[in-house]
């Protein structure tokens, strides 16, 4: 058992706000340079770069977890971190079923492209990916847990798109695996993690969390968030 550094909130160029140099290969390169052991790719309401990133990560010795930053109908952003490829495929279908197909203008919001390992464009997404889904926060949480995923309200101390800004406070009966914060640790009983929310390569790893794990993996992370079997959160940097 030893400490591992993880940054579980990174946008690729598939997110309209993700810079065009956030290709899967570039993300892996920067993550390695920053000494991260584990990352999650979490684009807005889509998981379409996850499998490529997992493959590239494996080659470079970095564990990549499949994730999405999901926008609920209340416009609350949450990280949904998925256990495996099968769950990702099924969760991607759920995301597409609940998509509101908001109009997208790349000139205003930025490009939304899926690329392959040689950085050729495979698909361009023509609706605005970050738009609120037709699913409430309760429904997002239920869907996440149905897929065996971790449900983590994102940047809860930010003044926009956070559970706190949109809903005033965290509903007590919401089943939360951890909360992500940007600044000072709040006086809350949930496990607290910090991630970069990087949209440009230089921001990868600017915030991260160190976990005591046997090895970096989804299962080990889940244990650490629950402080089970000797796994736990050691600290998070801001």
């Amino acid at each position, binding site marked *: 058992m030893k400490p591992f550094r993880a940054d579980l909130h990174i946008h690729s160029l598939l997110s309209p706000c993700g810079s065009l140099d956030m290709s899967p290969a570039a993300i892996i390169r920067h993550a390695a340079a920053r000494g991260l052991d584990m990352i999650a790719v979490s684009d807005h309401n889509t998981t379409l770069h996850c499998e490529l990133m997992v493959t590239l990560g494996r080659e470079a010795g970095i564990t990549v977890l499949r994730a999405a930053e999901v926008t609920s109908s209340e416009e609350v952003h949450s990280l949904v971190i998925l256990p495996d490829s099968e769950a990702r495929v099924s969760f991607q279908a759920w995301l597409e079923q609940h998509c509101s197909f908001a109009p997208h203008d790349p000139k205003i919001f930025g490009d939304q492209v899926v690329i392959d390992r040689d950085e050729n464009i495979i698909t361009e997404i023509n609706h605005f990916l970050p738009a609120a889904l037709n699913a409430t*926060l309760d429904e997002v949480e239920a869907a996440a847990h149905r897929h065996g995923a971790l449900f983590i309200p994102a940047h809860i101390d930010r003044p926009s798109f956070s559970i706190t800004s*949109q*809903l005033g*406070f965290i*509903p007590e009966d919401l089943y939360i695996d951890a909360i992500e914060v940007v600044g000072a640790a709040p006086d809350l009983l949930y496990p607290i993690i910090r991630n970069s929310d990087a949209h440009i390569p230089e921001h990868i790893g600017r915030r991260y969390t160190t976990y005591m794990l046997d090895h970096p993996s989804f299962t080990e992370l889940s244990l650490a968030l629950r402080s089970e079997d000797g796994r736990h959160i050691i600290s998070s940097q801001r």
Partner: protein
Amino acid sequence: MKVTDIVEKLELTVFSGHEGLGRVITGGYSSDLLSDVMGHAAAGAAWVTIQTHRNVMAIASLRDLSAVIITGGETPGDDTMAQSNEEGVPVLGTILNTFELSGRLYSLLKEK
């Protein structure tokens, strides 16, 4: 002006919280950010919003608001209505959007 008066004059649907229909409305507040309402809405206000989450009721009761008006034809969930009944704060609805409803409510409150 009472909640019943605005229900009648603005043709609002009463979803729940019938017990509170006699509450007096002293103003209004339009916002969809619950953190904003928590900090700024005055007691006695009717709150105009498209948010339907159950936290709406906790904040309405925290700020001692007289009613919640849900716009755009959205409907509150069962948990929101249950809490509205418990708190006696009515949840009302309209097909109008927030701009239209707020304008009409403003004129109505100003008349009096």
